[in-house]
């Protein structure tokens, strides 16, 4: 190639070596790919663990009849296996035996394996779980008749059913037969009577009517009897919970009314006659309610007595004990209505197992928890979580949108606004427990106490009225100053405008502070619930407000971005049509920003629904007996504390007396929390898609 050649032909340029790897950026591609893969693997692994364990929990497993080499025998459901270190001596002994051991009893590291059995029967065994070394197992069989009873109390019972009977203490006329047959709802059956004592009224006997006298007969009779028993249990629960609860509620209201009257009387607001009237009213009302209660109680007792007759004998073959009605009465057979579900696992086919599985899921989703939350369902927990999240979004979205609108559309962009914006963004980084502390101190103990009792040290009426006039005066002044201080278009902003602007801002702040003070110290306000702490403690409303505060930055930032992304040409067009600023905001900017606002809401929900730490302080509890929503007036009880899935996971997993029994519930609850968050998100995403479509389709 000569320097004179003006045109490059192929081959003119010197052959260079290939472009180096670093220049082409190949390693960066690998690096980014690896980072993404690592993230995905971690997320998928977590989800898979939660899904597998969450789904496996409710599957009915076989019941083993285990005979140990020391002669003991028990029924148990295998839970999991692990290898363990049995100590130096035992290990040495095992190593010596080596080849004699049955295959599979040692793992790869030559450690013995043990298996955890759920043995239930807490009343007689004490521990519901038992570790068994595989080497100590003589034989395992799968008895057809073994049954796992899920009871309303004391966990599961494993045993073999022997008989079903109607047991009753009654007085019969002297000379009545001690044996014979009688009519039962399940056909004519043999009865026998055992005399306790003879009295003047007759002979007091224990009567046992045998509905089923063998295991086979029991299996036949049980389904129908259990269905009846479940209906009786549901009815009793309804009476005890709702009917009694409703009477109590009205009684409590009457009591509160008279207490309020007393407080008002002490404060000099009502006279003696009014107080006397209130007291008389209370007397008559409570007498009325007491009568109603007594009647109800009679009904409940009668129904309970009937329910008490239906018994089942289920014997634990290991100890020979029968499932008792209560721990203190080991000889009284279990009530059939105490059985939530019986699973004859070993003789269930695939269809039957699926049935049990689905039934357990349904129970989990739709019923209240039992036994320190380790059994039963999580319905109130789901309800509390969803309701709190909805409340939170109802609060945070309007607040965040309004704040963002002012920041973006109305405020003059400058140092102050930048500082405010940075401060809002930094709020997102404050540890959530700090919000919890703030919520407890401000919402529960300050705002809540004010709602309950009114101001603690109200201003004298004169001062308050004076303050009211002062506030109005300051507001008028502020409005005037803002009016004359507003920069005129077409004229430069002078120092006078600036000073007036600051003065107007200061006056507005003073006016707002005064209004808050006037409300806080209003002398005529005595609180809405002076007789009982209602809002002055943990509650779902305060939780929602605390989390709204926590998620506010997310919404503000997302909304600001959405507002900024509305094209300037649309604003200009709107102003050009003669729209005012607010009309432009309302008709052009807000609809355009709505999808972005929804994105903010989705992020807020994702953050808020999974938050636990602040809720421990401001509202979530281990067991909330009543939902924050009920079917009689006033329906919503925002002051009530509630149960929350995140807190439930912590509580069941780490605060439970029976951690082994709680384990499965933790997995399923975690799974459920993920499902709830995903469902709420999907709902919001769906809403956003709808809004987008509406915006595009123009069906405004």
């Amino acid at each position, binding site marked *: 190639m000569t320097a004179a050649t003006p045109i490059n032909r192929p081959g003119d340029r010197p052959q260079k070596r290939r472009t180096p790897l670093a220049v082409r950026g190949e390693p960066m591609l690998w690096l980014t790919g690896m980072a993404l893969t690592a993230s995905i693997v971690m997320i998928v692994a977590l989800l898979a663990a939660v899904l597998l364990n969450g789904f496996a929990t409710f599957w009915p497993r076989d019941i083993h009849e285990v005979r140990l080499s020391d002669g003991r025998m028990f029924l148990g459901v295998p839970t999991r296996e692990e290898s363990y270190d049995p100590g130096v001596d035992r290990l040495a002994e095992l190593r010596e035996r080596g080849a004699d051991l049955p295959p599979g009893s040692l793992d790869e590291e030559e450690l013995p394996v043990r298996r955890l059995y759920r043995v239930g029967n807490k009343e007689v065994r004490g521990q519901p779980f038992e570790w068994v070394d595989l080497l100590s197992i003589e034989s395992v069989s799968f008895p057809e008749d073994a049954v796992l009873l899920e009871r309303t109390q004391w966990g599961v019972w494993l045993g073999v059913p022997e008989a079903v009977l109607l047991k009753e203490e009654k007085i019969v006329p002297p000379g009545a037969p001690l044996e014979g047959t009688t009519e039962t709802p399940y056909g004519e059956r043999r009865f026998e009577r055992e005399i306790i004592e003879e009295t003047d009224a007759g002979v007091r006997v224990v009567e046992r009517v045998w509905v089923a006298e063998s295991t086979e007969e029991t299996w036949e009779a049980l389904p129908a009897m259990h269905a009846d028993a479940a209906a009786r249990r549901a009815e009793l629960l309804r009476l005890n919970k709702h009917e009694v609860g409703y009477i109590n509620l009205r009684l409590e209201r009457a009591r509160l009314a008279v207490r309020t009257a007393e407080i008002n009387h002490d404060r000099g607001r009502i006279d003696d006659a009014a107080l006397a009237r209130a007291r008389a009213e209370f007397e008559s009302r409570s007498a009325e309610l007491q009568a109603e209660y007594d009647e109800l109680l009679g009904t409940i007792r009668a129904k309970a007595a009937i329910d008490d007759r239906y018994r089942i004998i289920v014997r634990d073959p290991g100890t020979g004990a029968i499932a008792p009605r209560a721990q203190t009465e080991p000889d009284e057979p279990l009530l059939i209505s105490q059985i939530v579900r019986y699973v004859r696992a070993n003789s269930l086919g695939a269809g039957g197992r699926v049935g049990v599985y689905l039934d357990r899921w349904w129970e989990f989703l739709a019923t209240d928890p039992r036994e320190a939350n380790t059994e039963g369902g999580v319905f109130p927990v789901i309800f509390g979580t969803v309701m709190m999240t909805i409340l939170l979004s109802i609060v945070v979205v309007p607040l965040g949108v309004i704040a963002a609108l002012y920041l973006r559309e109305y405020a003059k962009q400058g140092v102050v606004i930048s500082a405010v914006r940075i401060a809002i963004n930094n709020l997102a980084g404050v540890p959530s427990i700090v919000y919890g502390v703030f919520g407890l101190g401000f919402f529960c103990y300050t705002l809540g106490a004010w709602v309950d009792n009114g101001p603690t040290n109200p201003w004298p009426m004169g001062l308050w009225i004076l303050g009211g006039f002062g506030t109005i005066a300051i507001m008028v002044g502020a409005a005037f100053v803002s009016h004359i201080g507003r920069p005129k*278009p077409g004229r*430069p902003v002078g120092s006078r405008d600036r000073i007036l602007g600051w003065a107007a801002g200061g006056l507005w702040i003073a006016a707002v502070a005064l209004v808050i003070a006037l409300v806080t110290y209003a002398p005529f306000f005595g609180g809405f619930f002076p007789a009982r702490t209602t809002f002055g403690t943990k509650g779902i409303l305060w939780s929602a407000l605390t989390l709204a505060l926590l998620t506010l930055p997310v919404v503000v930032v997302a909304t600001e971005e959405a507002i900024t992304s509305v094209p300037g040409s649309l*604003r200009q067009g709107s102003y*050009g*049509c*003669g*729209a005012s600023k607010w009309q432009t905001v309302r008709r*052009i900017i807000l609809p355009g920003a709505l999808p972005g606002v929804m994105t903010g809401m989705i992020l807020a929900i994702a953050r808020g629904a999974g938050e636990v730490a602040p809720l421990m302080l401001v509202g979530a509890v281990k067991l909330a007996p009543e939902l924050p929503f009920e079917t009689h007036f006033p329906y919503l009880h925002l002051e009530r504390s509630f149960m929350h899935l995140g807190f439930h996971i912590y509580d069941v997993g780490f605060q439970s007396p029976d951690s082994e029994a709680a384990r499965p519930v933790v997995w399923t609850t975690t799974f459920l929390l993920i499902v709830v968050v995903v469902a709420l998100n999907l709902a919001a995403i769906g809403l956003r898609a709808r809004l987008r479509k509406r*915006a595009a*389709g123009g069906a405004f």
Partner: protein
Amino acid sequence: MTQVTPTPREPVKVEPIQPEPTRDTPTHAAPAPSRPIGSPQRQPAAAAVEYAIIDAIRRGETPAACVHDAARAEDHVLNVQNFNLWYGAAQALFNLNFEITRGKVTALIGPSGCGKSTFLRSINRLNDLILGVRTGGELILNGSPVYAPDVDVIDLRKRMGMVFQKSNPFPMSIFENVVYPLRIDGERRKSVLRDACERALRGAAIWDEVKDRLNESGTSLSGGQQQRLCIARAIAADPEVLLMDEPCSALDPIATLKIEELINEIGQRFTVVIVTHNMQQAARVSDYTAFMYLGRLVEFGPTAEIFQNPLLPETEQYVTGRFG
């Protein structure tokens, strides 16, 4: 008024050259007296002599504008009196004095940054939205001052319609787009809105294309249709003056043609002020033309005069594309 109105699409003799934007920033440009304006290769001589006014403007002076007698209308919509405008410290409009005739189309031409759009946006005070803009002098719209302290800007803007460079239909239905000015004025009666919508869409020559899809989004239309929709929106509230800011600059030639026809039609009923970059367009659609340079009005007169027989040589150079 006796001046000749150029017949639409029968262009006056104009060289088909798009003026290039000037390189030197015009607002507060220091004059470059050593370099003659225009293209020196074509007109090497005589440049320095002919461009006396332009040179004066470049030096920062504000020579009196050359306004044709025929453009001094008696029946004017807008009277511009010593109008000045500053962006902060930089002055963008200098002492403008002219009148916009009622029922005619007035075109503003001039190189980029000469203040055409700024002036247009001063008429409906859209410049108020920009921080630090201040004005001097006065604009009188149908007898009422635009910049008096007690003017209600919202109400003022309702008296005008504006069409922008880039079509900006709102993300609503076609119907709602058109009736937007009425809606914000508080009109709720369906019948009134429907009538206004049809009238405006017919006026913007788009009724036949959209009458069956009034509920579809305005953004689903093609570019030219969108711009005509915006024109419909601008005329929906019967404005006293219609402001058009380069309405065709983002459109293809066919859509441009349609809009130009439309402007000719609209010009029969409304007073139109149109800013354009395109010399032929100004010649085709307007009755009067104002040539602006660096914030000053250079020459203003009937379009035929400006294009065929301008009083100033620099105007001739500009409209024939030899300088700009």
